[in-house]
């Protein structure tokens, strides 16, 4: 079987790519997509660790998988609100360029 390290490393890579996406993309929606990538990286790690912990009993192992389920729901809720905010803003400004969001500063 493929050892856990590989999955976790993959998850780390995906996470980093997601983070990088947040930094490099100017469109809010793309940033948002990148964040989804990061969340999925976390899920991957959870699932991988769940398998790793299966020696410790079903409670421990399955709780990892259950957590993935919940995180999925969190992602969904975030999407709802995030897209809501985006849509609301787009009603006034036809751009999702976050670099335009620099009015408020010192």
């Amino acid at each position, binding site marked *: 079987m493929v050892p856990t390290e590989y999955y976790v490393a993959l998850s780390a890579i995906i996470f980093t790519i997601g983070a990088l996406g947040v930094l490099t993309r100017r469109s809010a929606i793309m940033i948002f997509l990148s964040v989804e990538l990061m969340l999925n990286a976390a*899920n991957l790690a959870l699932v991988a660790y769940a398998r790793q912990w299966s020696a410790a009993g079903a409670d421990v192992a399955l709780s990892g*998988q259950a957590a993935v389920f919940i995180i999925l729901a969190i992602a969904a809720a975030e999407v709802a609100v995030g897209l809501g905010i985006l849509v609301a803003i787009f009603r006034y400004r036809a751009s999702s360029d976050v670099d335009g969001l620099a009015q408020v500063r010192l």
Partner: protein
Amino acid sequence: MIVGAVGVITLKQPVHAALSLVGTLLTLATIYVGLEAHFLASIQVIVYAGAIMVLFLFVIMLLNIQQDPGPGAFKWLRPAAYGVAVVVGLALIAAVTQNTPPLPAPEIIDATLAGGGPEAIGTALFRDFVLAFQLVGVLLLTGIIGAVSLVQRKAVSVQEAETERPLEAVSS
């Protein structure tokens, strides 16, 4: 899968990027299968790649978001971001892969996870995570109320708002 992920953050057209993410998520689902999380794999496909991503695409289309305008004013930011990301990535990989204990025997895994079927997950969810499960409902409620409250208003024209402009600039 990595290719998909890279696609998400590099493709210029938002639609392409979103589709690339869908691809990534589908790949992830297959990996879940390999990790004995069958239920999650299916959920991943149905809910994530299906519902959530469709929502994304819908919004992208609705708002007619054009291609990402490129690095923009912050030219220095991109190289810096790459630099930091490389550090984060390498360090993270190095950190998480150290000292991992060996996997349990496949039989144990099979026995414990039982393939990660709905029954197993359900048991966990409704025993240990019953509170969390309830709270997910609250969370979604909040999300809905929030989204609705923002979107459902009567629009005030920007011009009107802009003419009421500040007494003085906040910045100094």
